[in-house]
């Protein structure tokens, strides 16, 4: 029997080109709501593990028919844990890699704030096998490792790997963008300003709005209170209608309730900010920093609106009280109509 096997081995000996440099790939992308991954291996290694034909694995049709077996191999060999538990990878796509004898599988897995540990190489029975292991965070490469028989473990500490300056700059921009990309928040802030007032009064109104949405944003982000967006989004639209109506019913000598309304509706807007923040993908290792910088970005966006609109309204008022009233009246009607439209749209479409 031994002789037969040796003879067989000699018959199977191949030229150097066949697959002498066995390697595979494991890429993880972090920073989003989930772990996005890609694992790739040579068709010969996959054929050996799956019992399928190596050359046929380069054919997309064949691969589609046999996807279960190939995905099964990848899921079995891929040893990635987060917090000591194997990640629950869900295959998304399986494809031959063009111009290379590789098959790649894209997958997703729940995000985790615990250290991620990859063990390898993927085909550990082969002493020459190497697995290129890369971790990307927010698109930037953080880990470049090579898993071999001599180096079987690679650890990435999610929390330690988060760069605070990168988080602050990213979420600051997100906060500003959110204010200017969403017309509803602009409409609400404009509505608060239309009736004008002195610097102290405007500061009081804006501070009330800021304080309120900071509270609800923090509460929602920390998971203390998370009302569904099907309620929050129409409520934000309704707040715009309300502030417009408040402006229209306001007469000289009446009590200015804008600070109170700003605080009450600010709570609602904060929940809206929180859902955007969640969609952006919070780095669990720097939750506080991302929350604070997003909020600061929102404030900067609001401040830009206030600083550009308030002086203009003050100038109109100083030039003509009647013109000022007309601007506030027309502006408030626009806001009421816009808010009403968004309310109906969000209520009916969602």
């Amino acid at each position, binding site marked *: 029997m031994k002789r037969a*096997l*040796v003879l*067989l*081995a*000699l018959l*199977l*000996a*191949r*030229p*150097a*080109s*066949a*697959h*002498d*440099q066995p*390697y595979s*790939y494991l*890429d993880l992308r972090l920073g989003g709501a989930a772990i996005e991954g890609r694992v790739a291996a040579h068709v010969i290694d996959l054929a*050996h593990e799956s*019992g399928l034909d190596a050359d046929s694995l380069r054919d997309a049709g064949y691969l589609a028919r046999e996807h279960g077996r190939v995905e099964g191999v990848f899921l079995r060999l891929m040893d990635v844990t987060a917090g000591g538990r194997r990640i629950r990878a869900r295959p998304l796509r399986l494809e031959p890699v063009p111009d*290379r004898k590789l098959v790649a599988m894209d997958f997703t897995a729940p995000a985790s704030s615990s250290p991620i540990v990859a063990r390898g190489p993927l085909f550990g*029975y*082969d*002493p*020459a096998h*190497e697995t*290129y*292991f*890369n971790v990307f965070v927010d698109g930037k*490469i953080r880990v*470049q*490792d*090579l898993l*071999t028989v*001599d*180096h079987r473990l690679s650890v990435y500490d999610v929390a330690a790997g988060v760069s605070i300056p990168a988080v602050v700059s990213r979420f600051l921009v997100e906060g500003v963008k959110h204010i200017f990309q969403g017309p509803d928040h602009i409409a609400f802030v404009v509505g608060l300003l239309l009736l004008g007032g002195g610097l102290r009064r405007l500061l009081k109104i804006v501070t009330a709005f800021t304080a309120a949405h900071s509270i609800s944003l923090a509460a929602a982000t920390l998971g203390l209170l998370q009302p569904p967006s099907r309620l929050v989004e129409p409520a934000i639209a309704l707040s715009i209608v309300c502030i417009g109506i408040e402006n229209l019913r306001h007469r000289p000598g009446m009590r200015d309730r804008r600070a109170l309304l700003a605080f009450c509706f600010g709570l609602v807007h904060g929940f809206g900010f929180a859902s955007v923040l969640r969609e952006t993908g919070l780095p669990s290792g720097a939750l506080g920093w991302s929350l604070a910088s997003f909020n600061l970005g929102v404030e900067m966006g609001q401040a830009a609106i206030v600083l550009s609109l308030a002086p203009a309204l003050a100038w109109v008022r100083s030039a003509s009280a009647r013109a000022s009233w007309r601007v506030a009246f027309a502006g408030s009607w626009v806001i009421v109509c816009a808010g009403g439209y968004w309310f109906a749209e969000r209520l009916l479409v969602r």
Partner: protein
Amino acid sequence: MRPIRLLVPIVMLCVVPGSARAHEFWLSPSTYRPAAGEVVSVSMIVGTGFRGEVKPYAAPRTVRFVMRGARESDMSALSTNGDPVSARFRVAGGDGQLLAYESNFASIELGAHDFDAYLKLEGLDEVLAARARPGAAEGPGRERYARCPKTWIGSGQAERATAPVGLTMEIVPLADPAAVASLPVRVLFHGQPLVGALVRAWNRPLAGVSPVDPAARDSLGPLVQVRTDVHGEARLAVGRAGEWMVSAVHMEPSTDPAAADWQSWWASLTFARVAER
């Protein structure tokens, strides 16, 4: 157990020694004659006689990866772990560009017979003699190896090629490799001339018959084999047109006996020559 599972270890017994012998390591640019503004990609290839496989860039293995053109650039900062193309750069002018790479140690273990055969093949006579001495360690060859390839792209500004880069082991051409038919080289180890090193050179035509895919090529034998003199120098007849690979290896007892018995450095230099008139 499925029959294929029984066969795999047997197949690997055949393949792994084969790969252990497929050890030349060279830098292969997409072109040796880039036009100004052209993007050149450079891959690392492991094999024998110009036949081999692309070795993706391995960041953790990289000690140094530099390009010397109008200025010296750190290519490792631009390369990504696992990329089959180890470097991409845009050629600024028509002068020569030198790329140099050095890896850290990787380990390999070969059976005693295979290891001795490989020492003989590479002309590592001193190591072979040391293993044959009475009382020397017998058994498998436990080796750790590092790679030190260079490539010379284009021609002109010869001093970019003739000045040492500072790799642990390197083949330094003493003239523009693309411009002379008889190329003097100096082999340095830790900056000092390496005496008695076997220098070999392979040649393949660049146009027509030789496939671009290194795995599809036939393995070629060396055209030149010469040992360095007391100054660590050798003269190579490289008049033939096409791509040239010059290679030398140095092995010595391991400074880390727990990791290996022997440690080696593999230096190479690739360049291309146009046809002689």
